[in-house]
């Protein structure tokens, strides 16, 4: 891959006009990617369709590009949105209500495990955070209560 192009999930490829996949020997995973490349789907979308890990998909796309089978169409990256500070206040309040004063420490531990922080927490990882925190609640009934409460809060926040 060209050093000036950073491969990520939002990159779009099309099949090369100058070289055909039939000219090279490909592994089955590479063929699977080739069948999905249409000049419109992003790398991330192809990975989803093929039920493939994103890292694996990125490697495959890189290999196919190096073999000259793919042409780059777009490298546009969607601007990342972050959760507001208010969300973490709500999260801490709800979790404290369920498990008591250890709540802030549980949240910090989970954020550390997710390699994330409150200041710049990606909005699309919101549910992942709730799920990870839920797993720290040993009581099944309390876990469901927390999840129910946070689902309701998330709905309210997104509808505003």
């Amino acid at each position, binding site marked *: 891959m060209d050093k000036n192009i950073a491969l990520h999930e939002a990159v779009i490829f099309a099949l090369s006009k100058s070289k055909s996949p039939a000219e090279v020997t490909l592994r089955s995973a590479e063929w699977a990617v080739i069948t999905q490349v249409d000049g419109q789907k992003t790398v991330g979308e192809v990975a989803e369709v093929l039920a493939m890990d994103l890292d694996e998909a990125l490697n495959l796309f890189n290999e196919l590009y190096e073999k000259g089978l793919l042409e780059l169409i777009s490298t546009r990256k969607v601007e990342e949105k972050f959760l507001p500070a208010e969300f973490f206040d709500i999260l801490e309040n709800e979790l404290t209500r369920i498990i008591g004063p250890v709540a802030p420490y549980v949240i910090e531990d989970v954020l550390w495990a997710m390699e994330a922080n409150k200041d710049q927490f990606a909005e699309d990882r919101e549910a992942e955070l*709730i799920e990870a925190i839920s797993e720290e609640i040993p009581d099944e009934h309390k876990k469901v209560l927390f*999840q129910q409460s946070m689902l309701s809060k998330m709905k309210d926040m997104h509808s505003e």
Partner: protein
Amino acid sequence: MIEDILKDVTEIDAVEGVYLASNRGEILDARGLSFDMDALKELSRRLLSISAFYATLGKKVTELEFYWARNFITCKVSDHFMVVAFSHSTQVHSLLRITLNVTMSKLLENKKFNKWVKSHLADRTYIIKKCEWTEAEEKLLAKLK
């Protein structure tokens, strides 16, 4: 009654649909799915088979996730019924799991629903079709032992 409870699942983006099945494999309710009843029954039978196999090993299965017919399938299993959701994206899986957990809890707490499911299970006219493991299934199961 069930429609309101399942609404939270069907409203998630990228979720195609959801269905409820009794642990006899009968479809109790289905929302938003393009598959016919026979296909869903066959899927339910497979899910019950997996659950039953783990039960013979003394392990209880409460969740199942896999890829089938170009859909990501997420299933929650209880003692008497299961909730099975179909989605097109793994990005919604955390939200879907949380929602299914809450949905399962609401269903378990609903007395009318539980009475209905238990009467369904007691009805001897519904029988799971006896079958044998295919060669591929036997090979997979041998790895789990």
